[in-house]
């Protein structure tokens, strides 16, 4: 067969594990030139779409083929890296696709905007492939710094400037914390390679130096995933940034934090837990408490929001709480379910943000009250929005329901034995019931309240296409979860070795 991963190895040689990223880096370098030579946004988007498509193709070839490889002991491509790279590629694809017709994205620096998007996603993918603490740190920083600039690029809106400053300051604080934690961990283990750290820790007992490393790293990556109490930047930033960027941050950037958490904590703990001297149950409880508080605060505060972007931000915080269940349960099944939920979350929350962005572009405000009577003005968009919100609330047979069933059941049931996390599952179920209330407010405004006009709305074509993609996946993944779930299960078994 011509199309398998040998194509990739033939082209990239020893750099093959980095192939999807290299393509994007090349793209990021040529995009400003494309913009300055053509001065047309469409041309830039066309090139970046092509670049992302090539990268996606390479990644899918490698994934389906089960390619494994490593580069310089710093990066290694395996099933886990493959599926996470796929997730980031989907996010970047959607974000780049809609940026061209959004009224919120920059006009002057559109080439730079696109290359920043691509560079940020390269950072994310570095984290997914990293096999060393240094590369994880570099990847997270690459993604973060690009995001700061992306948030600030909505120059017409003073909220964006304020949000960007807040984001930079809190981001800097969390970077400092992470770095502190990483150096403590290096001090304890004497190496920065993740597999070696696990091996080294399994020979020693728990020390407070390790405890401090753990706490500061939870805080640092907790900032990325917007876990309570490191969440306060998220609503301001999501509200202030251009909506395609909000979507990128809410669905992509958040997942980087999870990938880093999975890499650092799951790999280390599961390996180290094999010895009786190094018990991790206390740390699991720390994560369980954070998860419970995060989902509860996110859902409860979302109830009283009137700005839809803020509401979606708080709902993202709540979703992060659900995914944190993985860190508490720490089983292979939980990890697979968590990754699957990360995927469905891309389509549900991404879709909702895209609808918001499309409506802002055609001049509809961000207030929930601005959505009154939308079902009459744009029936298909309103239907899509309702489906995304119902999926987020976990109404069957949509994707959010299936992934929540996986995720919550992983906290209850493990190989025929009840886990001690059943209380966490019940908090999560209660929370998803609460969440229906604020999603319903939007659905009610769209379908039941009367709007001032019933004039038809025409949505830009790229937005319509991106929303349609999300819509299809939200429906299909609900009924055929196996489509992604098999890959997630493989990935989880790789990480658990």
């Amino acid at each position, binding site marked *: 067969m011509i199309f398998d991963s040998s194509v990739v190895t033939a082209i990239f040689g020893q750099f093959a594990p980095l192939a999807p990223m290299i393509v994007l880096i090349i793209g990021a370098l040529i995009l400003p030139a494309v913009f300055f030579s053509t001065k047309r946004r469409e041309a830039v988007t066309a090139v970046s779409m092509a670049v992302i498509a090539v990268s996606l193709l390479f990644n899918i070839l490698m994934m389906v083929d089960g390619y494994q490889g490593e580069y310089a002991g710093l990066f290694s491509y395996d099933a886990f890296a493959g599926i996470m790279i796929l997730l980031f590629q989907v996010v970047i694809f959607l974000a780049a696709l809609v940026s061209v017709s959004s009224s919120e994205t920059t006009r002057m620096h559109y080439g730079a905007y696109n290359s920043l998007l691509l560079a940020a996603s390269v950072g994310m993918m570095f984290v997914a492939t990293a096999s060393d603490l240094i590369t994880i740190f570099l990847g997270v920083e690459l993604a973060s710094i690009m995001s700061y600039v992306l948030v600030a690029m909505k120059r017409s809106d003073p909220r964006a400037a*304020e949000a960007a*400053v*807040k984001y930079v*300051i*809190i981001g800097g*604080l*969390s970077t400092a914390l992470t770095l502190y934690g990483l150096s403590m961990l290096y001090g304890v283990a004497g190496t920065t390679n993740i597999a070696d750290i696990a091996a080294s820790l399994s020979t020693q*007992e728990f020390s*407070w130096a390790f405890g*401090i490393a753990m*706490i*500061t790293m*939870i*805080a640092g990556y907790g900032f990325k995933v917007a876990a*309570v*109490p*490191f969440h*306060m*930047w998220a609503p301001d930033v999501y509200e202030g940034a251009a909506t395609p960027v909000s979507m990128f941050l809410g669905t992509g950037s958040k997942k980087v934090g999870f990938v880093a958490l999975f890499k650092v904590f799951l790999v280390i703990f599961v390996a180290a837990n094999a010895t009786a001297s190094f*018990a991790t*149950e*206390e740390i699991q*409880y*720390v994560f369980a408490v*954070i998860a419970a508080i995060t989902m509860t*605060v996110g859902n*409860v*505060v979302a*109830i009283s929001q009137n700005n839809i972007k803020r509401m979606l931000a708080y709902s993202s915080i709540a979703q992060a709480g659900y995914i944190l269940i993985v860190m508490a349960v720490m089983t*292979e*099944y939980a990890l*697979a*379910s968590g990754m699957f939920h990360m995927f469905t979350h891309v389509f549900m929350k991404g879709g909702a943000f895209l609808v918001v962005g499309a409506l802002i572009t055609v001049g509809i405000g961000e207030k929930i009250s601005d959505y009154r009577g939308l079902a*009459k003005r744009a029936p298909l968009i309103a239907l899509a929005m309702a489906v995304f919100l119902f999926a987020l609330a976990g*109404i*069957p*047979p949509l994707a959010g*329901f*299936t992934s929540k*069933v996986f995720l919550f*059941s992983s906290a*209850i*049931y493990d190989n*025929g034995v009840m886990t001690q996390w059943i209380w966490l599952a*019940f908090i999560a*179920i*209660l929370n998803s*019931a609460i969440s*229906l*209330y604020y999603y*319903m407010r939007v659905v*009610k405004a769209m*379908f*039941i309240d*009367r709007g001032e006009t019933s004039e038809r709305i025409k949505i830009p074509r790229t937005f319509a296409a991106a929303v349609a993609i999300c819509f299809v996946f939200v429906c299909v993944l609900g009924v*055929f*979860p*196996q489509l992604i*779930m098999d890959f997630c*299960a493989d990935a989880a078994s790789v990480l658990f070795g």
Partner: protein
Amino acid sequence: MFVEYTWLIPLVPMLCFVIVGFFGKKMPEGGGHVAIFGALFAFAVSVLVAYEFFTSAAYSAPGYVTAQIAWFSIGDFGINVGYYIDSLSCLMMLFASFISTLIFVYSIGYMHGEGVKKRRYYAEVSLFLTGMLGLAVSSNFLEMFVFWEVMGLCSYLLIGFWSFTHPSGDDAADNAASAAKKAFLVTRLGDVCLMGGLFILLYAFGSLDYLTVFDTAAMAAVDPNMVLLASLLIFGGVIGKSAQFPLLDWLPDAMAGPTTVSALIHAATMVKAGVYLVARCFPLFTQNPELMLFVGIIGGITAFFAATMALNNMNIKKVLAYSTLSQLGYMFLALGAGGYMMALGIQSGDTHLIAAGAVGYTAGCLHMANHAFFKALLFLGSGSVIHSAGTEDMREMGGLHKKMKITSVTMLIGSLSIAGFPLFSGFWSKELVLETAMHAGSYGVEGYLFTAMWVLAVVTAFMTAFYMFRMWFMTFKGKPGHGTEHCHGESPKSMTVPLIILSVFAAAVGCMILFGFDEYITTGINAAGQFQVGSGHGHGMTGWLEDIFMSAYTYLTVALVLIAIGIAYLMYSRKSVDPGKINRNGNSLIYRALSNRWWFPQLYNQIGWKLGYGVAKGVEFVDRQVIDGTVNALSSAVVGSGESLSKTQTGNVRDYAAVVMAGIVALFILTVVLFYLMGGA
């Protein structure tokens, strides 16, 4: 040969939903004929499947037939999708598809003036029917739950159908919107419980297939506490869906939708799903007599309270809504009392007690089927009245009998049936319900509670007869009201023909099922030690006649029913007794309590709105203000050196950073406490 095609039963209405949804605008009547075809097709397949199931020895010996394919799997558990047919699912899919067909035919006349919105209506009712039929044939709990939620979503959409433009004006439109929301959210509360129950089952049994969960050997191997917890949570879902006490408030409000939707929700679908689930979970529920006691008490209390609320309501649809609640209460009382005896019988190995319990199961299922017919009839009849009189207020009706003979006579049959007038359908099932409750009263330590429920149920029977005939006399007899003058005669044929068909069934279906097919709707433990629907023994016609007519209590209820009808006649037809005198013109405390639904809605508002929204506001306040404030003070200590720097930044960011620092301190304390408590390190 037909059973293999069971999957067509929910699938064809589903396809109709898609077809009508996309192309309905271009079709005559907004695609109504497609919806009718879907329902009729489902009914035809149901008949064939049921016929084959009952006649083929291969199926009737084990009492069920099931087939599944893998849906998805993860780790060591797999979820299947497939069908599970036994006589209970046959009963359910037969009456759901049959009545839905009639309701859809009726809709052609009733919804004629709705214009382009008909497309939405017919698409949604098709999906609604899909939900119900899918639920009836599902082979495992997760599949069932999916259809269960589909129905919840459809009910939300249909109750809110008139939320843009209600025929009765803007206030009514707002009512429709809030009623729809209420219905969705309240039933969701129950669904959360149900989902919790499913997780427990999954944990306990490692599977959600009916076949595995209801297996006697598997049940014995499982921790009994898990079974109890799962049953309780599942029943919580039932309370929400079937609007039982204390979540009964949404159903009367759900009258804001079109009358045909009310008929669909009350007769054929939605609320019956709860009854079906309890009947389906009988093997699970009968593991604990206390749980069945709880089911019975909830049923008895709902039956009583809902009936009182119907006594003085002036809205014809609301009276019917309360009567639905009350009749559903009867069904749960019967299932609870029967299950209670059966559970005691299983514990003590007493086969007589198990057989006595099976009567309760029969009574519950029979009442469910009967109620489907007479309640569909009554709602469609009231729709016919509203359609031509243009009002829902019974004070504006009166004397309609002369103008609408068919509607009047068919509704009289429905009222006689629901009131339990001797020999009508409702009579047989209601007597069996009462008999079971009475019977259960003499067993077990807590049995006396069932005697109390029996008293409530008898009083309810009296009230039912009274308010049904109050409704009938106020509408069709007495002085013509404002709406009667507006009335332009009998409704079109597409509406009266379904009424006539339904009235035949409403009068006779009870004794048909009871005398002809009673061995199919009973339950018991078969030779293999498994629970099996249809494995109990039918009493046969003479047996049932003896059961019912040899008991003195039967004559007591019949007498009460006749007295109630007489009182209603005197008050609202002859007008020789003035109801105003009894209730002091609506000022007596009890009258106000009833019109305010015993102040339940206010209670919910206090709990739901004030508490829920208040907590949300409070948490936001704490999140943004109190924590910030406290942290402001803390931060000068924690980030002391940053004090001079922070003055150059906005106050907010400083707070955020301080929260991060405080969070780390809190994490550290939490970790130390955990290690201390759990004895690590």
